[in-house]
């Protein structure tokens, strides 16, 4: 999933100066699972805003709504009848949802209520960790299904570097050395001979380096 973190309210408030009605817009997908921008968090942010506006003596109508997802025009269209009643939208979706909402409603100010962090998974309740950077050319077959691009601080394709200590990365004792994990996996799979295969120079043009990316599937287009 895409993992996000709630922005501090102090960062959001100044954007809403002068607004007389604000829609807090949650998303029922990834940000719900990582507890940053689902229905519950939309309700919490809306309640906080109401309280703060009241404290400032401002009469602001704060609405809340959570869409099935904000990365799909079909669901965004559900706002068509109500959105004109609001001066501003605070979207709690990932950066994709914020932009897609803004693209759908070009004259409406849409602000991000979360910081979009990474593609990752829950290690346990309340702890999420990065696993993929969407480099566009998956290498996991070569590395025992542990990604050096997402998990090595230097994204070394032929690691580890000299800073790997007791299974941890040189950047800190809380970070696993990806290459230690790769080696452990290769060992468990009986594939240690693969370690000595040099992974060739990567084609980063399929990564963000190549510019904004698009996937077109002619076979599924209408």
């Amino acid at each position, binding site marked *: 999933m895409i993992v996000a973190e709630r922005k501090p309210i102090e960062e959001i408030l100044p954007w809403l100066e002068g607004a007389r009605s604000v829609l807090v817009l949650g998303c029922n997908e990834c940000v719900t699972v990582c507890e940053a921008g689902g229905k519950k968090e939309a309700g919490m942010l809306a309640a906080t805003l109401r309280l703060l506006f009241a404290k400032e003596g401002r009469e602001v109508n704060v609405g809340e709504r959570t869409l099935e997802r904000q990365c799909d025009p079909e669901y965004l269209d559900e706002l068509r009848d109500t959105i004109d009643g609001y001066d501003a939208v605070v979207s709690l979706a990932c950066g994709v949802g914020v932009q897609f909402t803004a693209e759908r409603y070009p004259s409406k100010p849409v602000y991000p209520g979360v910081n979009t962090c990474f593609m990752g998974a829950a290690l346990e309740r309340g702890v999420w960790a990065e696993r993929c950077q969407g480099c566009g050319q998956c290498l996991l077959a070569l590395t025992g299904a542990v990604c050096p691009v997402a998990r090595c601080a*230097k994204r070394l394709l*032929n690691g580890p*570097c000299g800073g790997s200590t007791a*299974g941890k990365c040189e950047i800190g004792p809380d970070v696993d050395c990806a290459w230690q994990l790769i080696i452990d996996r290769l060992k468990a799979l009986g594939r240690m001979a693969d*370690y000595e295969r040099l992974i*060739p*120079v990567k084609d980063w043009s399929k990564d963000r380096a190549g510019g904004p990316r698009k996937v077109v599937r002619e076979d599924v287009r209408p």
Partner: protein
Amino acid sequence: MNAKTPSRLEKILRAGHLAVTSECGPPRGSDIRHLVQKAETIRRHVDAVNITDNQTSVCRLCSLAACIRLKLMGLEPVLQMVVRDRNRIALQSDILGAASFDIHNILCLSGDHQRFGDHAQGQNVFDLDSMQLLQTVRRMRDEGRFLGGDPIERPPAMFVGAAENPFADPFEIRVPRLAKKIAAGAEFIQTQCIYNVERFERWMQGVRDRGLHEQAFILAGVTPLKSAGMARYMKNKVPGMDVPDEVVKRMAGVPKDRQAEEGITLCVETIQRLKEVPGIAGFHIMAIEWEERVPEIVERAGLAPRPAVP
């Protein structure tokens, strides 16, 4: 073995002499006088001088400019190049820049993560890794081609080296990793500083078992300790460094004003012990901001005078 490049370091190693290299860090400004002075101090006692490339991610005068300066002084520089800060275009471009000044040695490195330095908020590049940089330099030199495939007019004639840390984890891949670096094109290896000689000997045993010492020249790295405090710092704070307790104890066991001397003596003894290890082709003496003591270490370790090569 015939030398493949005009590198003096390569000629000395191929002639079977124990080579001696050292290193100098460029200044944190544009005043080069101190570096020139450091280089002058060691020039008669070493075969080549590594110039570090923004080591520990602290921004400094560039390695390339400092190497050119040394070259113009008649010294033999080793251009250290990390893949942290430059993509494949910039790396190859700088290699050509170095080659245009007939800099004949390069050391291909990953580079410390930027979080250790003075620009922890910076982006890192890592377009290539250190092994891929080795492959790139060899391709440029041996095939006369850029990574992109186009031909190079007057390809770089560089003796290609890599670093290896026998003490990093996991220990079991430290020999396979060296094999991988040699397969990628490394012709000489400079190791991380050695304080744990026993562990280093175990690594060298593994290196010899695979005949890797015959495929690349292995220069054992040493760094004299200035004080017990430095020994403790190296032990606890520097990633991938193995400083045994007895080394710390030995340094702490002499009065503060004599610890520097003890550090030099320990360094000389380490070199002498390492000379007995089969497969060692030379020494890389990294005297951090202590270059003035290098001549003494070289002399006391029986490595002077340096051989003349044609």
